[in-house]
């Protein structure tokens, strides 16, 4: 069966102006229990790669620059 893309809004937003991934930070990616964050090497910023979030918040609480904001996923908001 061929596959089709299935887009969704993601609950976790990273402020690129504050994110210091370009300096080597990966804290939010490291702590996420669902492993759904990643670093965009081109933009030098973390981002939510998979819409599989437990809205638990370690990414936001542990980010050294306050760049992460966790919203409640739309389906249950």
């Amino acid at each position: 069966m061929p596959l089709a893309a299935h887009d969704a809004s993601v609950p976790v937003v990273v402020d690129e102006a504050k994110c210091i991934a370009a300096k080597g930070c990966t804290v939010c990616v490291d702590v996420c229990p669902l492993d759904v964050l990643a670093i965009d090497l081109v933009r030098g910023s973390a981002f939510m790669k998979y819409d599989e979030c437990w809205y638990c918040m370690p990414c936001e609480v542990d980010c050294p620059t306050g760049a992460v904001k966790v919203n409640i996923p739309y389906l249950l908001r």
Partner: protein
Amino acid sequence: MSDPETQTIEADVLVIGGGTGGPMAAIRAKEANPNLRVVLLEKANVKRSGAISMGMDGLNNAVIPGYATPEQYVKEITIANDGIVHQKALLAYANGSYDMIRYLDKLDVRFEKDGAGDYAVRKVHHMGTYVLPMPEGHHVKKVLYRQLRRLRIGVINRYMATRLLRGADGRIGGAIGVNTRTSEFLVIRARTVVLACGAAGRLGLPASGYLFGTYENAANCGDGHAMAYHAGAALANLECYQINPLIKDYNGPSCAYVTGPFGGYTANNKGNRFIECDYWSGQMMLEFWRELESGNGPVFLNMRHLAPETIGEIETILHSNERPSRGRFHARRGTDYRHRMVEMHISEIGFCAGHSASGVWADERAQTTVPGLYAVGDMASVPHNYMLGAFVNGAIAGQEAARFCAEVDLPMPDAEMLAAEQARVLAPTRRADGLTPFEVEYKTRRLVNDYLAPPKITAKMRIAQERFAEIREDLDSLVARDPHELMRALEVQSILDCADMAAAASLYRTESRWGFYHFRVDYPETDNDDWFCHSLLCKDAEGRMAHRKRAVDSYVVPVDATEMTAYQKLRIAPAQEAA
């Protein structure tokens, strides 16, 4: 994807799952014998993994001298579970409870104390007093991590265990893991294994339809249950589901255990109480469900009558601990505890001994039915174990494993089994198209809701088994395009195993028991003559799901017949209700 590398390492004690019970097992094994090679394997990162990722707002089952005795606790949990408990395991927990609290206190976990410096325990249970608040409980994982580092315990993050290894003599021999970011293989040969993989929390589908909007940490999807099953270990009383009361849609605790001692309570749409006690049990859940289904639903948590300072205190605890995003959820909907009740609901089904009673059979030494294999926490069969139970039984398992591995050598893994497992794990990466893990998981969990959730109906559960058999064939079409999707593809196989176990176990026990958890419409009565026993499920020599009964061991703490019905009288009489 090209074929990943396989690495082999050796350990004396391998702990799988670095959430709550797992780190404590590793710590205690290492403390028992610093020369042991202790390895802690974690699917996520031990810094923030598991149910206590963001800390906890209290101990739900603290047995503290002056407030309760171990015997009282054993009695209460026996009654709450309609008598089907292995009391020796409950007593081992209760006896270790206070020492563990003091150990955690020494490590700097902060518990609420009164002016005299004594623990400030509160009453939430139907009979005794066991809840110890932790208003500053958000740092539990930091404390554990510090201790792991101090003891130089080998931590391996981002490896998901997929199967257990057994030696030729049937003893445990280690486990296989796969890296969730690279799909590299890891074979860990070990003398002893402690399973601490948490609840099977991704079994039913949340009402929101969001796969990861579960009550439990969504990384806990029943891998531990599935691994134990495939290794031949027995699982106990799986038909005694976990179903939790929670904030509707948010699907997390609201939380009556925190608010109850301050005066908050569960109410119907008229604002009236309908249950005597907010402590979770199958009987409580039955009354909750009845109220939801009656014209009196929805059900709410009511705090409107509390003083503003009290509400402020509650907000600080609930919105900074455990599930801090609940504050954000309420704010968006304009739910202020001062003016509006919190709408509640009941969760989808799962397996979790932390809140309920079922899981991999574990005795008072945390031993499973496979020599050298231990199970602790939410995935083991010790009822109502909660966080402190995971710690205490983790400690017991760590000490037992340390002792046992001194007596045995390292079993040789079976090369054929290793090759077969590698083929199973990697199969989804060999396909260019097929079914995505997302859709297979969604469908499986939707069917769990449709056919397995109570009230349980024989005809529906049989249909479920037919649908699950079809999905089992679909597994041969699973496709994973990167290592992350491969993790999800493996998880869905655990979920399907758990769904099959839930159906089979529920069909086996032909009576009703544990209130809503095993409410069988075709067998509405409790049948103590035939079913006052544990039901054990395991894989037989032909690879089929088999069942047997295990007698309940004679009680170490006697409970007389008049006390036994206490939890069956939770509904407030109508006249009282209006008061």
